[in-house]
């Protein structure tokens, strides 16, 4: 696995921003879509974007050593503040010199605020102006996570990028609650900025909220920009909402957010979503999906995924993906993996390694296509392999909004797609 070298010939940034702990250089822009390829200089590492960040919840990525993660070309990984805040806790992390030192990882780290886990994992989560009130799962005591406490935990963890505590509402929520949450998130952002004790070592990203309401999203984005943060996240999506609403909110946000700063769409990890959102101008993503699905024996491929537990792989002597150069694909057959997935930890590790490699390779291909200014061509190639003749309508609409029309017949390849109303299509329709 090679370190990304897409930018070797590009030194002059088209857009740039310099913040106390982050320098962002947009080195290539797609002349058709809103995609850009950039370098993000962080305190611990220079990451290349668009980038996917695997999730290492508790300080490790499911059985993979940090050395393996480096070999897989991961630039930034995610840690969960809620889990790390409970175990091993901020005092120990400080004593260890921060999470980088604790887990022996030398590249980039990003931590979420802890709010999302709290709201989704804990039974009693009551949100007040002060913070998120919850029941400690270990002893049932009422506790509070405030923006100040979240930043305190994240300062102890020491990640390159921290997320503000936001008032998260489900994307399916409607009514006044959505606006209330949006404004509260802005107030919590200001409290978070004030509470950050390490502004020259750690970046604090605000999170655009507003549910599926264009007016609220617009207000939120404009408010956040006034804080002149090093980068911005788009949150409150990827929660089961209709994909047609999803992409519109993403695109609206990237239209407003400054070009010279990174945009991070939280909770996005499916390959097609990564391709589309990159075309809409997003630079960073995280998702548990690739590593979680690996543990069930599912290997990611350009056509979707292979459930290697299935009997049809018993005699399949090829690798997961003949074009993949990860250690699993170079050395093991689907037939071998079939014997061991879900049965031994090594079976799990082998698929996890491949799935991370798959995501990294996808992002490298996206970056290279943008640098070569052939991203629309790449998008068509990708969609034709992934979906075949029929593509979910939301993808077609989203791409049309940035001048890539999958329904038009491609002159060179003859490929075109017809829309289907489902948001998902599991296998390609050839």
């Amino acid at each position, binding site marked *: 696995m090679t370190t990304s070298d897409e930018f070797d010939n590009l030194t002059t940034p088209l857009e740039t921003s310099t913040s106390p702990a982050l320098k962002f250089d947009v080195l290539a822009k797609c002349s058709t879509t809103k995609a850009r390829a950039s370098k993000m200089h962080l305190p611990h590492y220079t990451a290349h974007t668009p980038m996917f960040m695997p999730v290492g919840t508790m*300080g490790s990525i*499911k*059985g993979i050593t940090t050395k*393996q993660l480096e070999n897989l070309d991961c630039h930034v990984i995610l840690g969960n503040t809620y889990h790390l805040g409970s*175990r*091993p806790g901020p005092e120990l992390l400080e004593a260890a010199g921060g999470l980088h030192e604790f887990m022996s990882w030398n590249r980039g780290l990003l931590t979420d605020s802890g709010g999302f886990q709290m709201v989704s994992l804990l039974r009693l989560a009551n949100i007040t102006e002060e913070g998120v009130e919850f029941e400690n799962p270990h002893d049932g005591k009422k506790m509070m996570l405030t923006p100040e406490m979240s930043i305190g935990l994240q300062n102890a963890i020491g990640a390159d990028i921290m997320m503000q505590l936001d008032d998260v509402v489900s994307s399916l929520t409607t009514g006044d609650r959505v606006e209330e949450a949006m404004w509260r998130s802005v107030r919590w952002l200001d409290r978070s900025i004030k509470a950050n004790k390490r502004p020259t070592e750690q970046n604090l990203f605000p999170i655009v909220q507003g549910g599926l309401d264009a007016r609220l999203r617009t207000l939120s984005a404009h408010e956040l920009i006034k804080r002149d943060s090093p980068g911005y996240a788009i949150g409150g999506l990827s929660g089961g909402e209709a994909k047609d609403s999803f992409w519109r909110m993403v695109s609206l946000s990237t239209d407003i957010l400054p070009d010279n700063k990174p945009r991070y769409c939280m909770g996005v990890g499916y390959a097609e979503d990564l391709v589309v959102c990159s075309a809409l101008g997003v630079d960073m993503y995280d998702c548990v999906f690739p590593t979680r699905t690996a543990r069930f024996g599912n290997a990611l491929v350009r056509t979707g995924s292979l459930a290697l537990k299935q009997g049809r792989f018993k005699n399949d002597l090829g690798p997961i993906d003949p074009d993949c150069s990860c*250690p699993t694909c170079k050395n093991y057959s689907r037939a071998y993996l079939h014997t061991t997935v879900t049965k*031994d930890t090594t079976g799990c590790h082998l698929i996890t390694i491949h799935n991370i490699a798959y995501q990294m390779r996808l992002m490298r291909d996206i970056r290279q296509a943008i640098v070569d200014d052939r991203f629309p061509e790449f998008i068509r190639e990708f969609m034709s392999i992934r979906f075949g003749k029929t593509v979910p309508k939301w993808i077609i609409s989203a791409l049309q909004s940035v001048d890539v029309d999958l329904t038009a017949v491609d002159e060179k390849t003859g490929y075109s797609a017809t829309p289907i109303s489902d948001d998902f299509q599991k296998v390609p329709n050839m």
Partner: protein
Amino acid sequence: MTLHFELTGANAAAGVASSATASPRSGRLVLDRSLNCEASAPASTLAPAAIALETPTFLKYTRHGLQPHLVREVAAELSDMPACTRVQLEDFLEDDGSACGQHDAGLHNFVFLDRSEVLLLDTLDPTVTRRVGKSTNSFLAIDSEGGTKRLTPEVFAQLVDRLKPDIIIPPADYIEEPLPSLTQGKRISKSVTRSAKWLDESIAKSVYPSAVFAAVMGSHSPELRDISAKKLLARNDVAGYVFNDVSLALPFESKLQLAQHSLAQLDASKPRYMVGASAPDAALRAILGGIDLVDSSYPYAVTEQGFASTYVFGGEGAAGGIADASAAGAAAGAGRLDLWQESMFNDFGPLVEGCSCFTCRSHHRAYIHHLLMTKEMLSTVLLQIHNMHWYKGFFADIRSSLARATLAEDAQRFLERYGSSSEAFGELETLATQENSPTTKIQRKRHAEPL
């Protein structure tokens, strides 16, 4: 293909007065594949002229052909390991008697094992003490997740021809004996006859020239063991002997005595592999009693408890580090460090001070403790690396001690040092009754009920 075993150096430890067949010996096991029928394979897959293993040593224990928890590039962090690996067929056997699909490029290739490794194919997982299943004259019944699988000598032979392992242990009629029962005489007698028949058929029905290690049967009956040994001695196609009384519920000392009883009647120039003698104290006693090979299932059992090995064999120029004096007294006495302990929470030292393994160079106790507490699989990966490294050092020390002819004294000191702890080296027994791996929901098959 030939497998050659020669005794080297001083073969009797000073002060051990016993027959040549039941005393420790240094040896060299050499596998030469150059006369293989695979000579037409492309140059890149041709084995080196010969692979030499210095004994006493251990076969690497695997699950589905890989060392537990260690994918290839992680296992590569372990240096100077003996180049021999054991695989059990039951990991791959399907209900219909097939294994490894229709793959026909050999087992080395299927599990991505380098050709410079000696590959031994056995039938049953040595960490599982319960065989269960009613075998008949025609087949060995293997209990597994999907039900009982049947292994006939004929199927075994076919698989050998396709998988092409270097050494095979043909299926024998292993029987379940939860507690020694002296009324089992008839059953034992049957197992001796059956196993001899299966050995005959396995060899006769396969073409591939794997070296054969034959199981010495007879359970706890000296007379029946004599019959089994006699049959084996009469053969000219057996390259080594296997003692596998894992499911016999007798103390290890008794099992070793039974093995030594058999050894007296067997060809002393052939190598001996004892299954179930993996723990350091058992391995030492077995080696003192003339055993040449054990397997590394013990380090795996240590890992599964969340422990890191710290036992020190010592002697001049010992390869292992010294157990950390700050560890709780009981832990040092049991030859392992319990990473679950609360005291590990903020301990930023390595597992063992001075240990040169990947884990000890890269991580500290507090991190591994955290990984165990949060049920992260990396915990067992890191522990397994250390425990295998430690085990390798232990065997290197044993071989040095044997070469200096001080094995008896060094072993005595070792056994006394850990003899006072009732917990020392009991991890394999605990593993046999353990339901789950500490960090996953992967169920352990055929775990025995705690006694």
